């Protein structure tokens, strides 16, 4: 909770920087504030108590704290990565404030206990991102991305609200726990429109995590937005959306899982097939990563689908989020530096191993982790998902997942092959900021570290 307050305060502080002229100080202050938020978050984890705040509107239990920790840590890396990007921008202060407000929304999504907080969290996270996606004002692609994201996002919000309204109509409460107890009391006599409400919320959440067939916005938005904003979308936003998804469906609607698991299984299967085969046909690296994020969303949805109410699925989702966030931060950090000239196709990576061997190595590790090759954390992430899934009736999804992962290896390795085996077009060394190098190396090292000893993260939850 203190983390949420600190980051809200930081956002407001960022806006004051323009007036009181401490723009230079703002960056270290934000970093310090994020570290403080992380420290308070960690302390709340240590005390291990879950105190609901404000009439049970929001509450940081262990699950929320773990997801908040991932989000705050990723945001820390992201801010360091974005250091020089912010320097180039004229509207630096606005960028800072918007990103911090998006973080507030993300933290609310991890810890909501009430439908009103869920909706406000979704909106607080999304609205800054609509603007940030369109923040390259002279670039028509960026404008398109922002506009598309806004229109589609508003549509999804409409579904979310309608779903909440229908569920309120049936249960008479916005409170997640009260809805849950109402369901277990009334069991089969729930009115039909309650189930429609649940399905509407499922659609809205699938949109927010960009799962097929609600994924059409993702490739265009990921490609059009400035690379670093794309990095933010595929890490912080995704983790927060999954934390919300998990809490909503595994806590709120767990009792009626027979209603939504069938639909979710279809969504997962479609996402796996569409995302991987489309990614294999792309040339633009950001588009490849967009489709890859859809297929990762499918994997994370599988954990929710498995619905094993034990530490197994919680651990699997947390580990997956962490592994994916780390891999994505490293990958997008490198893509940002390599594509600064404007060429975003795979051939921009040609001969990177000669031009900058360490960068190429980091990219290779990130790609292997996203593909799920052993000793990187991506392998264990997928392994935990499979162990959660194996006990359920949806084993056929595992076959699709394994087969499409094989397709996945093809497009991830295309980048690696371009780096190591293709002739370079230029001999220019890549100018890269020292802060960026530190972030990329750190996240790559962490990717391997939690891949070698997955127990550190995967055994966090012992209920």
């Amino acid at each position, binding site marked *: 909770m203190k983390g949420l307050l600190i980051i*809200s305060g930081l*956002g*407001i502080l960022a*806006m004051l920087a323009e007036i009181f002229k401490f723009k230079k100080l703002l960056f270290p202050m934000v970093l310090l504030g994020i570290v403080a938020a992380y420290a308070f978050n960690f302390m709340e984890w240590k005390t291990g108590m879950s105190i609901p*705040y*404000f*009439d049970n*509107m*929001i509450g940081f239990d262990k699950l929320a704290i773990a997801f908040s920790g991932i989000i705050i840590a990723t945001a820390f890396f992201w801010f360091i990565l974005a250091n020089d990007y912010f320097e180039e921008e*004229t*509207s630096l202060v*606005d*960028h800072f*404030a*918007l990103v911090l*407000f*998006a973080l*507030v929304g993300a933290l*609310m999504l991890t810890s909501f206990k*009430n439908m*009103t*907080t869920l909706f*406000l969290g979704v*909106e*607080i996270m999304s*609205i*800054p991102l*609509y*603007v940030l996606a*369109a*923040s390259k*004002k002279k670039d028509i692609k960026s404008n398109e991305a922002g506009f598309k994201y806004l229109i589609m996002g508003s549509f999804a919000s409409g579904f979310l609200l309608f779903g909440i309204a*229908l569920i309120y*109509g*049936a249960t*008479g*409460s916005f409170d997640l726990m009260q809805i849950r107890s109402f369901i277990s009391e009334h069991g089969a*006599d729930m*009115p*039909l*429109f309650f*189930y*429609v409400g649940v399905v509407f919320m499922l659609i809205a959440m699938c949109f927010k995590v960009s799962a097929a067939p609600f994924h059409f916005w993702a490739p265009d938005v990921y490609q059009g937005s400035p690379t670093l904003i794309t990095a933010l979308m595929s890490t912080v936003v995704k983790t927060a959306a999954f934390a919300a998804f998990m809490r909503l469906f595994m806590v709120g609607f767990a009792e009626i899982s027979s209603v939504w698991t069938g639909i979710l299984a279809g969504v997962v299967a479609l996402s796996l097939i569409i995302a991987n085969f489309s990614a294999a046909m792309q040339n633009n690296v950001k588009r490849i990563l967009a489709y890859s994020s859809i297929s990762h969303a499918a994997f994370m949805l599988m954990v929710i689908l498995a619905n094993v109410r034990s530490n197994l699925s919680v651990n699997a989702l947390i580990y997956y989020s962490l592994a994916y966030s780390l891999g994505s931060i490293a990958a997008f950090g490198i893509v940002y530096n390599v594509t600064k000239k404007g060429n975003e196709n795979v051939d921009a990576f040609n001969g990177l191993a000669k031009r900058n061997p360490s960068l190429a190595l980091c990219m290779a590790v990130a790609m292997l982790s996203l593909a799920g090759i052993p000793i990187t954390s991506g392998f264990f992430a997928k392994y935990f998902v499979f162990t959660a899934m194996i006990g359920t009736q949806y084993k056929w999804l595992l076959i699709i997942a394994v087969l499409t992962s094989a397709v996945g290896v093809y497009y991830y390795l295309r980048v690696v092959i371009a780096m190591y085996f293709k002739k370079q077009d230029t001999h220019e060394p890549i100018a890269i900021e020292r802060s960026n190098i530190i972030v990329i190396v750190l996240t790559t090292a962490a990717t391997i570290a939690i891949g070698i000893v997955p127990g550190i993260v995967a055994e966090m939850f012992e209920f």
Partner: protein
Amino acid sequence: MLLGYTITQWLFGILSFLSIMFGLMVVFSRNPVNSVLYLVLTFFCIAGHYLLLNAQFLAVVHIVVYAGAIMVLFLFVIMLMDLNHDNEPQKTWLTKIIAGIAGGMLLCVLVGSLKGSEQLGISQYGSSQIGMVKNLGKVLFSEFLFPFEIASILLLAALVGSIMIGKKEIK
């Protein structure tokens, strides 16, 4: 009592008919300005529904914000950008059919799910006086304090965002 219905039921029927009719007119009228004006009328009818449901505050806010501020904004945009033509782009038959099927399916789901809900005998939750300004204020500042306050972050973010998009870039 008129033909066996109470005045409230008559009002409900008339308002529902009008709001659905005006809603259809919004979609069917070819001139954007006409569409917007029909939308204003739809909003007034919905505000009437709010009054019937004993939600005075919501009704007034609905008229002030939607029928007032937002509609004026719509009209301004249409007039300033000179969109006042009947040149709506023609959609192909395929799109029309697909859109019709998709919309019709959604309608079927909603009608089907709401049909029969009256026999369930769901008791009325909360007090019927919750829509009064006084009660609403009390709830907003006690139980719903956190959402109420955090909404200020949402508004702030929207404000900063719109300024950032609108601001001229100084090089």
